[in-house]
């Protein structure tokens, strides 16, 4: 006798341990299988873009910290580059190297969060997460030495950074760089060959690169589908053209590929930091002639940089005043979610969170 079934629509979130923040999905199931997903955004919308219109360019740095709060240095950097382009500022070299070191450390931190929570969503409740959080603690302590704040740093300013690294920062950085590779190897040993991870992630939520490009997806999600596109390499900003690093690529474009790319990118970031340490010279961290109150000439500027989540860009329109006329964030987290529906339909409820976690988003950036 055939069972009579009917699809059921359930709310996932906004309070949910696996939604990477306050995110809501209205999911329709046929048994365990997802047949429709409607993402609902806006639970963390704070009106950052409107707030920025009444803040000076330097004050807005604090707003950018709080968007992608897991990768604040990268958000800072992207914003500061836009301001520098708009105003025509040439930053101080030492400031640039410090920015790069901070951004790459933050990239490692963000990928550690992504990896830890990805594994938690898979069901390894807590253990890998505690390991990655332990490593992230090392990085957050470095940031505390560097600028006084662990998470929402507001470290960067137009022209460079706001203060030089104290003397005890460099030996501490060396200690962390010595320890991290061994820890990342540990993850690979424990996780990458793990049969459960492989069975649950291989071949799940595959998207082809053409669809990803057409849906404006950028970052590790795009590189996991074989597209060799990394802004640090293709359209170098800061001093990335003086750095040699590999760009991890995968072709499978499934959950496993998206996870493994981040592991490899962490290693590449370590290489980048070492090269920055070798090339940094003493000097001022910010040019003297940059005024504290910036009034860029009327015009607009957009700069896109490679944040851990994808292309993060800030489009600034100036009317000559001390605050921007329009402040727009090109948020990779929101845009990468365009394909969420396509990626989860046909798979099971358990895969929904894993796929969502593999895209690696941050609600602060999605909603702003």
């Amino acid at each position, binding site marked *: 006798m055939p069972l009579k079934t009917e699809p059921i629509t359930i709310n996932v979130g906004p309070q949910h341990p696996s939604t990477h923040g306050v995110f809501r999905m209205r999911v329709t199931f046929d048994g365990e299988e997802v047949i429709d997903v409607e993402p609902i955004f806006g639970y963390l919308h704070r009106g950052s873009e409107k707030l920025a219109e009444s803040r000076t360019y330097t004050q807005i740095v604090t707003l950018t910290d709080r968007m992608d709060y897991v990768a604040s240095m990268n958000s800072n950097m992207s914003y500061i580059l836009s301001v520098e*382009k708009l105003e025509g500022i040439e930053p101080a070299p030492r400031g640039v190297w410090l920015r790069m070191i901070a951004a790459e450390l933050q990239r490692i931190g963000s990928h550690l969060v992504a990896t830890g929570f990805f594994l938690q969503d898979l069901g390894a409740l807590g253990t890998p997460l505690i390991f990655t959080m332990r490593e992230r603690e090392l990085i957050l302590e470095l940031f505390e030495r560097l600028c006084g704040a662990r998470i929402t740093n507001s470290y960067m300013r137009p022209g460079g950074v706001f203060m030089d690294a104290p003397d005890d920062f460099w030996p501490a950085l060396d200690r962390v760089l010595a320890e991290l590779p061994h820890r990342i190897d540990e993850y690979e040993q424990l996780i990458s060959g793990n049969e459960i991870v492989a069975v649950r992630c291989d071949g799940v939520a595959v998207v082809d690169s053409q669809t990803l490009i057409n849906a404006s997806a950028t970052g590790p999600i795009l590189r996991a589908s074989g597209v060799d596109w990394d802004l640090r390499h293709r359209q170098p900003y800061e001093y990335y053209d003086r750095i040699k690093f590999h760009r991890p690529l995968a072709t499978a474009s499934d959950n496993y590929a998206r996870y493994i790319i981040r592991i490899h990118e962490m290693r590449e970031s370590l290489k980048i930091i070492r090269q920055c340490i070798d090339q940094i010279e003493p000097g001022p961290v910010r040019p003297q002639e940059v005024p504290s109150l910036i009034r860029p000439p009327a015009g607009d500027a957009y700069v896109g940089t490679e944040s851990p989540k994808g292309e993060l860009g800030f489009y600034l329109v100036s009317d000559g005043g001390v605050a921007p006329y329009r402040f727009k964030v090109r948020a990779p987290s929101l845009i990468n979610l365009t394909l969420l529906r396509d990626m989860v339909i046909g798979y099971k409820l358990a895969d929904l969170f894993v796929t969502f976690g593999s895209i690696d988003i941050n609600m602060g950036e999605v909603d702003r």
Partner: protein
Amino acid sequence: MSSSTAFTASGQELATEIEAIASQAVTATGDYDVWVAPDRLVDVMTGLRDSGFEMLIGVTGVDYIGYFEVVYHLLSLSQNRRATVKVRCGEGRNDPAVPSVMEVWRGAQLQEREVYDLMGIRFEGHDDMKRIFLWEGFEGHPLRKDFL
């Protein structure tokens, strides 16, 4: 040091390319951006996508008091260059509307909803033109200059 305009198509180059795709569609040319007539937008964008701009990076709405402007940032991965195309709409703040480019680039889907939600510019042809961050029933469009 900053890549700034190194990977950006100049206004002149872009205007020439667009002229080849859709004649008379360009209404103005700047140093690094062009303005296009709204009714030719979909043709222009389809042509630009097919001639190498595979990715739509961003859709932004700007409120210039007397009119609205929608700014499209494009990226060509194969040619490694960016382009900026702008469209003016809503003269006198009157019902700003622009054709949707969702059919050209799927990536416009959520971004156009955001511009509608916060700026009030409607995208005709979008399959799900509703608010994205603010709740249904919210009145007004916060990013507009007259919303206080």
